[in-house]
């Protein structure tokens, strides 16, 4: 077989050299797929398949294959659900709150963080279905007219959660899509074939006219205004799933701010864990600089201190309350059979991030990667500690029990990471992973200022 004739240079590189450097650099992320990419995507699909088969088996057999044992009926599924909802908070924080604060450094990381938000909410949402067991009855949680004339219980935090999570999912998708429209138009003008067709459809005829930009920037502003209280509310509502009950270790007023700070903490760590390799592989050092990473590290340090303060407060309140059940629950956490998870949580979330006090370590990429990975691990264990240890020791010593996750739960848990990675890998090849127009906005401003200075 003869090798195919070499392509003319113009076809090899769909972005002509006359195009701006920003377009060429940032669109090049979407071009071509290397064997390494296929290997990675294949691995994630394999793990997702294993998890999907496990879920199907669990639907068939029943929740008995999970490690649930009296009195612990919220296990790894709920732990992982809360973990992913937490991860989802970084995107909206970076896009909405830092936008309102006019923190311009957000511009090159906001897109990937917004995408991670949508993907993390999708991953988390699945866990509600996995956890309920009888998935075919999951829609009972929605208020829909039915023959029995029944309605849902709006006093229940679980019902609030349904509204909070579905609102969060919808709003994040709207936010991501609105931000993508101008970038899709950039891609539309530069690709041929099926991509051209796809981007032409998704760009909605965007041309960047004054009218379109005005409506666009107003929409982003108003959505930021809506998303800011939303992001604070979502993890507050998730925390109330616990705090509204009277389980020792859960029934605490500090839970809402504690969970929100933890969510931001873990979300930022996840953005670092994902973006450090992405930056390296695609050579985006010019757009995602160490300055961006350093700012993220500062926010991780700040939220680490808030989370650490919450841990101390929890223990203090347990001791100071004089409530025996509360005191023993916290003693059990630190020195009971789950001591490992508690000390992992404290080491990863409070001790390691203190390295970020030092500028040398904040700007040292390998350290950032390692610490952010530890933070992810620590934040998963935080939810494990809160959920499992509290349920394992409620008021009546006669019903205390020990929960151990089974292979089924661990497979589905691993599948959630593979699912998230798979979605992100596909996203990277289909849509711009850095907000091109926002990077240009800064670049053109800087150029104009430089020109003014020269005159």
């Amino acid at each position: 077989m003869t090798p195919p004739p070499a392509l003319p240079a113009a076809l090899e590189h769909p972005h002509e050299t006359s195009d701006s450097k920003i377009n060429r650099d940032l669109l090049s992320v979407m071009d071509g797929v290397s064997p390494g990419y296929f290997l990675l995507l294949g691995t994630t699909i394999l793990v997702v398949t294993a998890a999907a088969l496990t879920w199907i088996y669990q639907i068939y057999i029943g929740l008995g294959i999970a490690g649930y044992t009296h009195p612990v009926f919220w296990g790894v599924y709920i732990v992982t659900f809360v973990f992913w909802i937490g991860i989802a908070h970084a995107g909206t924080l970076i896009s909405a709150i830092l936008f309102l604060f006019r923190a311009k450094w957000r511009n090159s990381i906001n897109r990937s963080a917004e995408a991670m938000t949508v993907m993390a909410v999708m991953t988390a949402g699945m866990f509600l279905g996995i956890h309920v067991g009888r998935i075919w009855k999951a829609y009972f949680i929605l208020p829909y007219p039915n023959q029995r004339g029944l309605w849902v219980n709006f006093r229940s935090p679980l019902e609030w959660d349904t509204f909070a999570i579905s609102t969060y999912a919808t709003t994040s998708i709207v936010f991501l899509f609105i931000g993508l429209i101008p970038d899709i138009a950039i891609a539309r003008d530069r690709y041929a074939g099926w991509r051209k067709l796809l981007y032409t459809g998704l760009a909605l005829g965007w041309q960047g006219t004054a009218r379109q930009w005005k409506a666009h920037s107003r929409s982003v502003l108003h959505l930021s205004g809506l998303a800011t209280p939303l992001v604070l509310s979502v993890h507050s509502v998730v925390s109330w799933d616990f705090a509204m009950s009277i389980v020792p270790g859960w029934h605490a007023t500090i839970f809402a701010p504690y969970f929100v700070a933890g969510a931001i903490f873990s979300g930022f760590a996840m953005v670092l864990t994902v973006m450090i390799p992405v930056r390296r592989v695609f050579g985006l050092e010019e757009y995602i600089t160490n300055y961006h990473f350093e700012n993220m590290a500062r926010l991780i340090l700040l939220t680490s201190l808030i989370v650490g303060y919450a841990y101390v407060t929890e223990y203090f309140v347990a001791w100071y309350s004089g409530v025996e059940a509360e005191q023993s629950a916290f003693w059990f956490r630190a020195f009971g059979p789950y001591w490992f998870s508690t000390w992992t949580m404290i080491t990863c979330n409070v001790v390691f991030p203190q390295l970020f006090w030092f500028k040398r370590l904040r700007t040292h990429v390998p350290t950032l990667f390692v610490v952010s990975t530890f933070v992810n691990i620590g934040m998963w264990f935080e939810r494990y500690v809160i959920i499992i240890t509290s349920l394992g020791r409620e008021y009546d010593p006669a019903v205390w029990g020990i929960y151990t996750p089974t292979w089924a739960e661990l497979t589905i848990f691993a599948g959630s990471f593979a699912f998230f990675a798979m979605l992100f890998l596909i996203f990277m090849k289909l849509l711009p992973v850095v907000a091109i127009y926002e990077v240009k906005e800064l670049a053109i401003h800087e150029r104009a200022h430089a020109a003014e200075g020269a005159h």
Partner: protein
Amino acid sequence: MPSLQGVFDAPGPVAEAAKRLKNRGFSDLEIYAPAPFPELDDVLDPKPSRVRVYTLGGGLLGVVTGYAMAIWMSNDWPAMIGGKPFAAIPTYTVIGFELTILFGALATLLGLLLVGRLPYGSFGKNDKGYDKRFSSEEFGLVVGCRERDVAEVDALLRAHHAKEVNLVEA
């Protein structure tokens, strides 16, 4: 009717050129920009954007829907729990709040589509004055004018640092 397309490198000159042309009575103007710039927002249409009306309307509709739905449904199947009123207003604040955001966000999207007139044009076809350089890093100012004004518009665009002026429509 001819249209002239001026290509610029920065938003400032585009805004000034557009203002001058508008003052001289040219009304068929269109600006193309690669990114949002506040100086270009109010040149052609100084009125505040109406997207805010949609956001506010959606949010108000959402808060009313949230509370009304929860209150009505609680009374439709009255369940006495702990001697509390059927409709427990404080706990319904979460529902009211979430629907405020949900409806507000969807209405904002609707506002963007209606106010920004999206989807725009016919599938795969751009304006005649559009150029893919405008989704790169250049700015465009397209002026529709009468035959006899072409020279004047051309001179004005060049006086405002247009790096090239093209006749896009005869």
